[in-house]
């Protein structure tokens, strides 16, 4: 029997062709594809069966799942529930206990080598008992499930780089996905949590093209993590003009000037907040007056204090003065500020730094 395609299913559910193409259009725009991308997505959805997804929770706070169910466009939300076959997700599924586990085992067996493993949370390796589910450690469970996965989506900062539990002194020896296994395609969907529409975009990309999107050398999809928040921030003009908030709620804060001096990590943080914004484009931290705390960067909790501004790059064109910033970095290092926070002020250097810190094997990031 011919397997039903996603489009077949959507049709059967009563979606019109027009709604279907509209969805493809939204997704293409979200992923920054060329116009021809719409046709590509439409074609893929018309011809490919649903992918099976197993969604695991380890050391986490469930903010990624909470974010996921806030995907902004209603059509996106609806189709997402139907686009994938979510075979196991202990936050949402009806079954509990033995029945839940039996369902998962069956799904793994039936779709061995084909399913996507979504991981929410870090994995503690300090002791068997730090995180168990059904009497089994997170580490054992994860390794078992990763084995049969076609690819792994590491949701959020926990699975991508350890997040809160991995912050100093990392009491449970929490590790992100890519530090535990290799030889599998892994995508790090950064953020604490990631933006809902970014999560949706990654899944649609995979269903469309049958592989992970192009990743940067930290394993993040370039289409969402190409730019620093600073590069796309609507307050950037104030930065360039030298107009800064000096204290919360001062006259400049009321005018929405740049939050650089309040400790904004926008210049160090690669994410789409400035473009996609949050919860249906309502706002993002800077727009609501709070500096970015850099939650999409590895180790951001160890880069506090959050309200100390990153070393002086006041009123200068960033790329033009790379040398000056390099010098500032040395001074800052003496002052006890992490080099990472400083050097990354420049995109190019960020990439170099990343490569040093997170050497990612080609077969880990390559979709095939």
């Amino acid at each position, binding site marked *: 029997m011919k397997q039903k395609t996603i489009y077949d299913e959507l049709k059967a559910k009563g979606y019109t062709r027009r709604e279907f193409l509209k969805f493809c259009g939204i997704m293409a725009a979200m992923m920054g594809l060329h116009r021809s991308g719409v046709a590509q997505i439409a074609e893929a959805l018309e011809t490919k069966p649903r992918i099976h997804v197993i969604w695991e929770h380890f050391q986490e706070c469930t903010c990624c799942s909470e974010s996921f169910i*806030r995907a902004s466009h209603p059509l996106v939300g609806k189709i997402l529930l139907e686009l994938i076959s979510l075979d196991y997700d202990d936050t949402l599924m009806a079954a*509990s206990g033995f029945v839940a586990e039996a369902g998962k085992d069956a799904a793994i067996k039936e779709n061995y080598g084909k399913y996507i493993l979504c991981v929410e949370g870090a994995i503690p390796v300090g002791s068997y008992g730090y995180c*168990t589910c059904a009497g089994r450690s997170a580490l054992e469970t994860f390794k078992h499930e990763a084995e049969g996965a076609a690819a792994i989506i590491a949701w959020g900062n926990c699975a991508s780089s350890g997040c809160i539990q991995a912050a100093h002194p990392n009491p449970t020896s929490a590790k992100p996905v890519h530090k535990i296994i290799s030889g599998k395609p892994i995508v790090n969907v950064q953020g604490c949590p990631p933006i809902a529409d970014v999560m949706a975009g990654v899944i649609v990309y995979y269903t469309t093209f049958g592989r992970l999107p192009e990743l940067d050398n930290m394993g993040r999809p370039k289409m969402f993590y190409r730019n620093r928040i600073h590069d796309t921030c609507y307050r950037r003009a104030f930065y360039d003009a030298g107009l800064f908030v000096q204290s919360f709620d001062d006259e400049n804060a009321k005018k929405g000037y740049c939050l650089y001096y309040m400790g904004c990590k926008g210049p160090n943080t690669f994410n789409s907040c400035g473009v996609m914004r949050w919860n249906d484009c309502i706002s*993002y*931290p800077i727009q609501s007056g709070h500096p970015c705390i850099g939650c999409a960067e590895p180790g951001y909790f160890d880069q506090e204090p959050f309200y100390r501004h990153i070393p002086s790059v006041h009123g200068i064109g960033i790329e033009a003065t790379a040398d000056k910033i390099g010098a500032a970095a040395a001074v800052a290092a003496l002052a006890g500020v992490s080099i990472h926070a400083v050097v990354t002020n420049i995109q190019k250097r960020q990439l170099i730094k990343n490569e040093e810190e997170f050497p990612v094997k080609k077969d880990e990031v390559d979709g095939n």
Partner: protein
Amino acid sequence: MEIRVVVDPVTRIEGHLRMEAIVKDGRITDAFSTGTMVRGIEIIVKDRDPRDVWAFVMRVCGVCTSMHGLASVRAIENALDIHVPYNAEMVRNIMLGTLQSHDHLVHFYQLGALDWVDIVSALSADPAEASRIAQSLSPVNAKYTPWGENSPGYFADIQKRVKKFVEHNPTNNLFSTNRWCWGSKLYQLPPAVNLLGLAHYIQALEFQKEICKIQTIFGGKNPHPNYLVGGMACAINMQDPNAINMARLNFVQEIIEKIQIFANEVYLPDCLAILAFYPQWTHIGGGLTNYLSYGDFPLGHYGDPECYQSKRGIVKNRDLSHLEEFDPVSLDGLQEFVNNSWYKYSVGKDKGLHPSIGETILDYTGPNEQFEWLGGDKPYSWIKTPRYKGMPMEVGPLARVAVNYAAKNDLTMELANKAVATLSQYADKFNGKPCGITLDSLFSTAGRILARSIDAVEASEYLAISFNKLISNIKSGDESMFNGSKWEPDSWPKDCKGYSLSEAPRGALAHYAHISNKKIANYQMVVPTTWNGSPRDPMGQHSAFEASVIGTPVAGFAPDSPEMALSIIRTLHSFDPCMACAVHLYDENGTVIHKIDINTPQ
């Protein structure tokens, strides 16, 4: 004969919960509640800048996101003696009311509903009948316009969509159609009411996205919005598009109105209609008899509990005519025990410690390979056991309703009386016999679920009241949002302590902070699910989860059957467990002492 039952994972909750139970003569006679995950957030916040701690502890939980952030800035401000501007108090109330409305709704529909609503039965329901029932459910509060979307066509459409969804992949889908015990006698709703529940499950999934937009406006994002010690970061400027202005406030007001309508016209009526078909569950799952609520939603300075809209106190022995005081500072009042947890104390494992002088040393003594049974004869959880003057307490929406009822809060009394009367009337009618539902029926699994929907209506009222107060204060010319007088660490005392008591969606939440030399010397959280989900104390007293599960009738169900699991999780879900919140630990000296004689994996 005794049989052992394990439910692990307990799904549709936040985090990792395991429940072991012993069944004898068709009833659960003993139960062991285990938090199976630990992270160590209190250790991690040690030596950090106190102004940053809100961001760390907010990551305790992404479901009741924002709650620990709020509790943290309050505790730090208490330690540093900072009073935040009135506008900031109101915005924080609005954030809190938004959270409670959102959280309760998601709990009732996305997490809890499938315990009572039979998805498979809904697929064969008559949409016209579902529409008729939806329209006949009398609104609890006549001042709101109906929610709409209750036509037969609407229900038929939902039914069609879900049918296709389920048919495509009957074995593996969210509803686990082929594996779960749909159609079991445990599911007692008529098909049309099942369809009503299913339709509103999907509607709620859409609507919850709207609710959190309020947090996004004031906090920049959701989950995990931003807080600020000394006020809020969102400046007010009626003359500027880059600040909180009239356009933003109007948007907030619109959503608040929708929240009120949903809570009054959809959530509470659904809850009453569904529970009315399960009258026996008003006699199951009562558990403890003491209830604690810290109160919240200040109408003035947070430090003055007198101005709270939701009241503080303790109800003992379910006596709603009497309210006792809670003392947060007495060292032998609030205490945490670790006798059955994987920690140890320098003062001995059987002693309790007040959070301000507490200590925790990781001491995992559990199994080091895959296990079937933990049992209760040795430590069995990562959750500590809080007690007040040695007494176990239930916290959460039911405790809030009980405490506010005893405190003679007009809103609570009116809502609770009305809801109970309506439930009684529905139950008698639907079951064709008197079911004897009274105010005391609140102390049960069904009652706890009803209390949450009452609490959601209350939260939406406090939300609206706080919003109106904010508007009138801005009108009077006050646009201040931040008190920066103690922002600089040089203005702080060398050593100070503070605490905050707040009401999270799941109940009483305490944060205790000790600041020394401008850094966090010690930080501790006593969290709602720590109260409810903890193991037994040195006196052998159960906490709420265990106490409530004991007595559940499970005759005829195999130990690994879905029916057995369902009977247990119905009561557990009535608490809306949040395990990530419940488990955390800290060490006074910041050192983690591993006493684990095991082959540490990798």
